[in-house]
């Protein structure tokens, strides 16, 4: 019987293994292990790829979301709108920041239903965190419109969606901040 594994890392890495190993060798030679020149170069490339002014490399997609919330001063007493069908990290970072996750149901495309957002807004709402789940972009025009009308921050959870486009623009460039994961199972990964 044919066995089709969910993932085959070996097939994925074999063609580029030697190239990566020699790049690691170069890092070892210059010994700039922490925030080294390659990080800066990679950040620039990601910013260029996504069409944003900046890109900031962090520990994980989870930390990218958490630090974005912190950077916008979101914490105790605040509410953040997101979806109930994402990987749990989307919600846990809101809790980790001290804020309260407010779930809005999804539409047929499995992404947040923009029509249901406004009824969930309160005086404590500070941000909307749409998730481009499975790599499919959210209807961002409507989200951004609602956010602007209510003075809310939009943080895109684009962890599964690097390279996805919405009306010709890359995800991660559509809100106030976009967050990516480089976990081994992602299209672009760092082991």
């Amino acid at each position, binding site marked *: 019987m044919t066995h089709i594994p969910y*993932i*085959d*890392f*070996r097939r*994925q*890495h*074999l063609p580029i*293994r030697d190239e*990566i*190993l020699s790049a*690691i*060798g170069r*890092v*070892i*030679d*210059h*010994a700039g*292990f*922490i925030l080294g020149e390659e990080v800066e170069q990679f950040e620039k490339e990601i910013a260029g790829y996504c069409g944003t002014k900046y890109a900031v490399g962090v*520990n*994980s*997609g*989870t*930390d990218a979301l*958490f630090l974005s919330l912190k950077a916008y001063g979101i914490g*105790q007493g605040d509410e953040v709108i997101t979806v109930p069908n994402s990987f*749990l*990290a989307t*919600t*846990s970072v809101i*809790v*980790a920041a*001290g804020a309260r996750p407010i779930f809005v149901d999804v539409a047929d495309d499995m992404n947040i239903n923009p029509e249901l957002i406004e009824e969930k807004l309160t005086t404590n709402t500070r941000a909307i965190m749409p998730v481009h789940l499975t790599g499919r972009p959210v209807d961002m025009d409507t989200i951004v419109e609602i956010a602007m009308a209510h003075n809310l921050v939009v943080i895109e959870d684009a962890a599964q969606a690097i390279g996805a486009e919405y009306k010709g623009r890359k995800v991660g460039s559509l809100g106030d901040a976009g967050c990516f994961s480089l*976990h*081994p199972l992602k299209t672009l990964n760092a*082991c």
Partner: protein
Amino acid sequence: MKKQVTGGIITGSHRRELMEAAMKVEFSYLARQFRQAGPGEDPRRSYTNQVLEDIRDFVETGDFTLGRKLQEFESRFSELIGVRHCIGVNSGTDALILSLRALGIGPGDEVITCAETFIATAGAIAATGARPVFVDANEEFTIDADLVEKAITDRTRALLPVWFTGNAPDMARILAIAAKYDLPVVEDSCCAIDAAIDGKKAGSFGITGTFSFHPLKNLNVWSDGGMITTNSDQMNDKLRLLRNHGLVNRDEVAVFGVNSRLDTIQAVVALRMIDDVGRITDRRIANAMMLDRAFSELRPYIEIPRRRPNVRHVYHLYIVRAQDRDDLLAYCIENGVEAKVHYPIPLPYQQCCHHLGYKRGDFPRTERDCASIITFPAHQHLTDGELQYIINTVKAFYKDRRR
């Protein structure tokens, strides 16, 4: 006339002669580390190549997240420290944050720590929402046990002593105070891999110990990385949940956690280096002893902190107090000795601590230290000639001052 620096001696310590023999003694040894072979191995086969081969083999397994090699490293590190459990995390900072979170510490709570430490110690307390409460340092740059009890309030939830510089805090007294007030002790042993008191290792005294594998540590993973040590089965269970999103299994979540896993590829690097930790540490200690012997002749210009014979101080940082510190520092740098200051500004007076309400005069010893301490390179890759050059540079500085 060029002076010979090989063989460990530079003849003459006058400034002019020193300048002629000038060399650069770097603080960071990373570039050298990877040109050296491991113990009992062919020196032509460098660490770098061995580790790259390990990584090459590892990549083929595809076992990237919480993989088998991570478990193997956690188990080896448990043996090294002499504890039941080790939990690999993102960084030493995360090791502290997760230890405090696993103890249920958060907003409204207070955690007592030392004013003389790296910012991450206090940053970890603040990250949980708790309040860092600082206690002044003693003569050895660790928390003054005499002052700890005065800092305890009904909001105190933990004591967080720091093995700063790789030296032991007075753990016997801290544990006694902790027992008296029923408080847990979290050890910030991030600088102190392989340090010990009477043979008992740093990280094995408290409810948890916390370690960093940052590139400058005596065991490192070529990047940020950390470890939590504990003998408590309950803490082990909680910490394993917290570092992996609170996931009980693939589909079920028990608590809100974070993503703070030591990468398996980092464990591959560490497994290659762990056998060498004892040798690396012994060499650092020998270098520190050589500097101590030479600097003891420079009293009162140089003051060496007390050394306790029952403590294995691993000299992550080799720090002494110096007269005219700023001038000495500039002189050393000018002459190629990459001396540093850890740290020049007392932590409680940093901008990030303003809301805590501390004022000048609250930490007299820390203030005095910040103005007088200097850190010299003491790493395992220094040659005897380089150590002697450090010594001669410092001697030359004070000789010129006396004129």
